[in-house]
């Protein structure tokens, strides 16, 4: 019996070795998953529908606008870059399912700019792109942990981290709002905890901190937040949440006549997105804001001019805003990564 098992095992090993040889002979011709002689396929998950989609659902159109321009100008060494987009509604379990589809069914070379801290974390755990060798390029979240090359070896950050932003906000508060009572609205997950860590490092003492659960943001919730900020007599209120939370807060504050000094985090600070929801421009006036890229209205900036010209032609009638600029900037960086990866780019290169 033992001998038989051993023989079976030996045979199986021999078969495996033969298969192994055959498989290893293939890559010489087929360069990489998602890469053909004429194209490179990338995949993106983000909220295209649902509460949190506000503003961010313009990102795929922005990225595609740049890739179309790139493709019309020779692509990456003759290969056209295509982008497969899947709606995850900002729900981590859906991000996991859609990412699996992108990798297994659509067979993308790499994931580009997946959005949301909780979503990217869930994907890292359940899909494990690192184990599969799939690059996760330029995640659309500022969670500081994603910069950790040991923990997330195939994941690359692009946005400055929430900790960095909170520290820079803290510095501004120290220099300009010393002695004022500071209030903070934040999302009650890893997005918010990263911000809290940064504020702690910066030594910011809050008169009141108001957490909100992802998906709960709306006018009714905002009225409740305002009650808390008023009770604490906050002079400065920091909104460190998604666009829909900022919009709900500013819209409700306008109705109730609540006017603290606002300070907006970059994630939810895009003016075009906020104004589109009906928030009057005057409510934003004099609020403090932060951005790593130039002002989207600054047409003296060569990138803003270049990207906005391409976008206007690709998506006529759609306002050029921060989500568009960041989406195009990320696509532009991805193009450089693909070009720098050599004549036959692979996931590893």
């Amino acid at each position, binding site marked *: 019996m033992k001998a038989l098992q051993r023989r079976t095992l030996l045979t199986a090993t021999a078969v495996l070795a033969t298969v192994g040889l055959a498989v290893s002979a293939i890559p010489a011709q087929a360069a990489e998953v998602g890469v053909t002689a004429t194209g490179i396929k990338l995949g993106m998950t983000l909220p295209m529908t649902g509460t949190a989609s506000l503003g961010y659902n313009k990102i795929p159109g922005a990225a595609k606008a740049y890739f179309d321009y790139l493709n019309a100008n020779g692509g990456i060494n003759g290969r056209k870059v295509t982008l497969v987009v899947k709606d995850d509604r900002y729900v981590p379990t859906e991000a996991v399912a859609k990412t699996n589809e992108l990798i297994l069914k659509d067979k993308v070379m790499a994931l580009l700019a997946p959005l949301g801290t909780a979503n990217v974390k869930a994907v890292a755990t359940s899909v494990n792109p690192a184990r599969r060798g799939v690059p996760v390029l330029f995640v659309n979240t500022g969670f500081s942990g994603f910069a950790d090359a040991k923990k997330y070896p195939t994941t690359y950050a692009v946005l400055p981290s929430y900790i*960095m932003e909170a520290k820079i906000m803290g510095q501004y508060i120290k220099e300009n709002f010393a002695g004022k009572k500071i209030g903070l609205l934040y999302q009650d997950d890893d997005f918010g905890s990263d911000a809290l860590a940064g504020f702690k490092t910066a030594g910011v003492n809050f008169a009141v901190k108001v957490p909100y659960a992802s998906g709960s943001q709306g006018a009714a919730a905002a009225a409740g937040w305002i009650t808390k900020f008023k009770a604490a007599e906050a002079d400065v209120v920091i909104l460190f949440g998604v666009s829909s939370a900022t919009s709900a807060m500013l819209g409700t504050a306008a109705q109730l006549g609540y006017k603290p000094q606002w300070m907006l985090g970059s994630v939810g600070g895009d003016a075009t997105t906020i104004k589109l929801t009906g928030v009057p421009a005057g409510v934003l006036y004099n609020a403090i804001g932060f951005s*790593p890229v130039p002002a989207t209205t*600054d047409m003296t900036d060569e990138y803003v001019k270049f990207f906005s010209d391409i976008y206007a032609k690709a998506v006529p009638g759609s306002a050029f805003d921060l989500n568009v600029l960041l989406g195009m900037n990320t696509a532009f960086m991805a193009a450089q990564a693909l070009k720098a990866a050599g004549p036959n780019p692979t996931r590893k290169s």
Partner: protein
Amino acid sequence: MEAIDSKGATFANSALVPAGYSKTSHVGLTGYWVGKYAPTGDLAPIGGTYVTYTTDSGSGAVVKSTYKRPAMPAKGLPN
């Protein structure tokens, strides 16, 4: 990925702050400029000039950045 590890920090892009990619870190951009929203509701740099600050995700100080963004590659295409 090897390309980002070795060259990512020098990839041309619109940001006014440097990126920090290396073989040991996948940190992206490292700072912000501070602005005020104008009467139109649009964010603009305070005093009309971009003043950028950089820092890290640890206990490092917040410092004014001296980063000069390289010119955009010709036609906005990768070099």
